[in-house]
C-alpha cells in the first residue's frame, strides 16, 4: 500500500464588493460612528437595514433611515473558545446578538467582556474602532455598560 501523500493548500481571494445604496448607507453611518436601521412595512426598525421588505418585497428607502442608539441589550450570546482566522479577537471571546435601543432586531458582533459577567439582557455599547473606514469592523466589538 503506497503511503498516501498530503500537502497544505490555501485558497485566497481579495474580493472588492460594491455595497449598493442601502448597505452603503449603513456603512457610511458606521464611518460616522452612527448606527442606522430602516423601518419596514410592519413598523419595525430593522438593523442592519435590508434592501427589501421581508413581507411585501418592496424596496426600502435607503435615504430615509432611522438612527438607533449605539447602546442596547444582549438578546443572545455564545462563547467562542477557539478563535479562528479573521474573527474579531485572537483570544477566546463571546459573540452576541445585540438589540440596540430604537431597533426591533439584533445586530451580530463580538462582545468583549469577562465571561462570568455575560448574560442575556445585559446592557452593552459599541466600542468604535480607532479609525473608521466604512466597514463592519468600524464596530470593533461591543463592551459592557457600567
Amino acid at each position, binding site marked *: 500500500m*503506497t*503511503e*498516501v*501523500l*498530503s*500537502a*497544505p*493548500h*490555501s*485558497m*485566497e*481571494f*481579495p*474580493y*472588492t*464588493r*460594491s*455595497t449598493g*445604496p442601502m448597505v*452603503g*448607507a449603513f*456603512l*457610511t453611518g458606521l*464611518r*460616522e*460612528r452612527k448606527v442606522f436601521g430602516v423601518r419596514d412595512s410592519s413598523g419595525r426598525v430593522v438593523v442592519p437595514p435590508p434592501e427589501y421588505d421581508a413581507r411585501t418585497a418592496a424596496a426600502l428607502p435607503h435615504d430615509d433611515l432611522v438612527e438607533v442608539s449605539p447602546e442596547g441589550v444582549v438578546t443572545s450570546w455564545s462563547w467562542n473558545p477557539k478563535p479562528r*482566522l*479573521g474573527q474579531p479577537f485572537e483570544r477566546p471571546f463571546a459573540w452576541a446578538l445585540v438589540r440596540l435601543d430604537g431597533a426591533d432586531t439584533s445586530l451580530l458582533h463580538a462582545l468583549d467582556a469577562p465571561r462570568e459577567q455575560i448574560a442575556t439582557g445585559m446592557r452593552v455599547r459599541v466600542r468604535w474602532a480607532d*479609525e*473608521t*473606514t*466604512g*466597514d463592519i469592523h468600524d464596530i470593533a466589538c461591543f463592551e459592557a455598560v457600567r
Partner: protein
Amino acid sequence: MSAADGSKPVKGIVTPIRLDYRYTPGAAQSRFLHGLKEGRLLGRRCPQCGKVYVPPRGGCPMCGVEFAEEVEVADTGTLVTYAVVNVNFANRVIDLPYISGEVLFDGSDMTSMVLVQGVSPDEVRMGMRVRAHWLPRDEWDYSFTNIDYVEPIDEPDADYESFKEAL
C-alpha cells in the same frame, strides 16, 4: 475619522477570503505522484473501455468504473496540439513567446499539458514526436513539475490517425 474619506458615501468594501486545507490526492493519484518521484509515469487502465489514464483519479470518467490495473507509460510521446503563447499570466514568467502543448505519452490515452522547448513557433506542429526533459534527479519531488518540458526527438511525425482520439 479619516479626513481623506470626506463625506463621500461608502460604495465599496474589500473583503479578503482565505481558507486553509490539507489536501490528500487519494489512492490513485498518490501512486502517480510516488511514481513521479522515481522518474516514472504511472497510469491506470479502465477494465471496461481499456483506456489508460495519466494521471488516474480513481475511476474511468467515461465508464464510471474503478481502475485496477496499473500501467507504466513511456516518457516519449506525440505532441497532439499546442498553442504559441504571447502573454504572460499570473505569476508565471517565461521568455515570450513560448509553446504550451498537450502531449500523448506512449501508452497513455490521455494527454498531459506541458511546456515545449527546443523548437521554434514556426516549426512546431501536431504529430511532432517528443521526449520529456526531466529536472536533475536530486530535484525530484512528488510532482509533475519533475518534467521541466518536452523537446523534439529525431523520429518521423506521428500520423494524425494515430492520435486523433486523444484530441
